[in-house]
């Protein structure tokens, strides 16, 4: 596995560790963790902070019946859960993070590739939330995407292959964050297709009839 060079910033890992990160960015952080041992070990240490803070809190007595109620519930549990055999699809890949494969094969989402431009295909996921569009992008070998800017913040994780833009080459596991207004022109590597997971913040829809007046000063920031 190639070396991962681009990581989520530490604030994002902290929010992830504390359980405060929205679903879609969490999907991207989790996908990055699959490839990145360094962030995994940082996360384990961040969890120790949460654990320490929890264990030093002032204990609050629980109701007398709570233990009995928990005991009664565990009596009713099946002793071992059945192993669910994961289904596969042409889009899934053993090298992908488990949660990406799960999104690919889930009956609720079953995404399919659609052509977005001559060199880019996209497959959108259903993730039960509206703040971000979560999708896979496939850039064909050597494919050039049109120069574009972003309507909102975008997180990207390279799942397979590599691509580059004006600033750097991004390999498997690399995590990128782009802000609204950032302009770039990604290019697929020459030696094979590149598949990325991305979460793009949905554009703000203004319900206020005078909303258009606010628009120039609005910066999308759903986090």
């Amino acid at each position, binding site marked *: 596995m190639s070396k991962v060079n*681009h*990581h989520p*910033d*530490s*604030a994002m890992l*902290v*929010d992830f*560790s*504390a*359980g*405060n990160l929205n*679903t879609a960015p*969490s*999907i991207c952080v*989790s996908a990055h963790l*699959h490839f990145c*041992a*360094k962030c*995994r*070990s*940082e996360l*384990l*240490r*961040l*969890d*120790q*902070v*949460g*654990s*320490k*803070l*929890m*264990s030093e*809190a*002032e*204990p*609050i*007595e*629980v*109701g007398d019946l*709570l*233990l009995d*109620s*928990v005991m009664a*519930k*565990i009596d009713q*549990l099946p002793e071992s859960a059945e192993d669910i055999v994961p289904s596969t699809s042409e889009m899934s890949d053993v090298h992908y*993070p*488990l*949660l990406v494969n*799960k999104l690919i094969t*889930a009956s*609720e989402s079953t995404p399919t590739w659609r052509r977005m431009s001559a060199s880019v295909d996209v497959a959108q996921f*259903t*993730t*039960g*939330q*509206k703040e971000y569009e979560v999708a896979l992008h496939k850039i064909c070998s050597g494919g050039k995407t049109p120069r574009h800017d972003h309507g909102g913040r975008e997180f990207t994780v390279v799942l397979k292959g590599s691509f580059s833009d004006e600033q750097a080459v991004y390999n498997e596991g690399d995590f990128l964050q782009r802000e609204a207004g950032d302009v770039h022109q990604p290019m697929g590597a020459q030696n094979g297709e590149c598949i990325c997971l991305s979460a793009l913040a949905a554009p703000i829809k203004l319900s206020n009839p005078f909303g258009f007046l606010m628009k120039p000063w609005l910066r999308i*920031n759903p*986090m």
Partner: protein
Amino acid sequence: MLDRMIEIVDQKEEQAKKTAMFSTEKRSDQWSMLLVSVAETRDRRAFTQLFNHFAPLLKSFAQASRHEGWFPGLSEDLVQEVMIKVWQKSASYNPEKASATTWIYTVARNCRIDMLRRKSNTQHLPLDNEDFWHEADEDTPVTLMRQKRSEDKVQTSLAKLPKEQDEILRKVYLEGKSHAEASNELGLPLGTVKSRVRLALQKMQILVAPEFRDDVL
């Protein structure tokens, strides 16, 4: 029959010796040992002891939450859900990797997210919350030893943090505020909140060599 049993005991002893040789850093605190006996022998007395210690801490953790949609009435539901998960999932607890307290914290955090997701509109997400934390780490003796050392380091340095750093960590971990929300609440620029958290993490030696990071403050 007896021979067979002796053989099993011997094998276990052998295994225990091996484990002791390769991991001198195995957790031996009371709670971790109790959690292991819950996993191995479904020991209800051990579980009750864990419950008596952790349930009041979990309730306190639950009541600290300031998440949107959260209210104090949910606290005991969370305690109950966490303790049931502890019983169910105890087999996946690895005392070499984390203390029982850290492991139970992660269960509690995940249960809290699950309850919030169930209450919010995030339905039809074809993922379980645990899928987000599925990616296991390499359990080599070296990494395990580092984790154990780090646990001690976090413990001692957390107590010595300046008030303004401690305050933000509590907001983030206990109240469930994101950095952005904490900055709004404290009336501080986001950059200041981030750098306070970062300073705290550096003191606790949580971040791996900063030169790997491409984010700059």
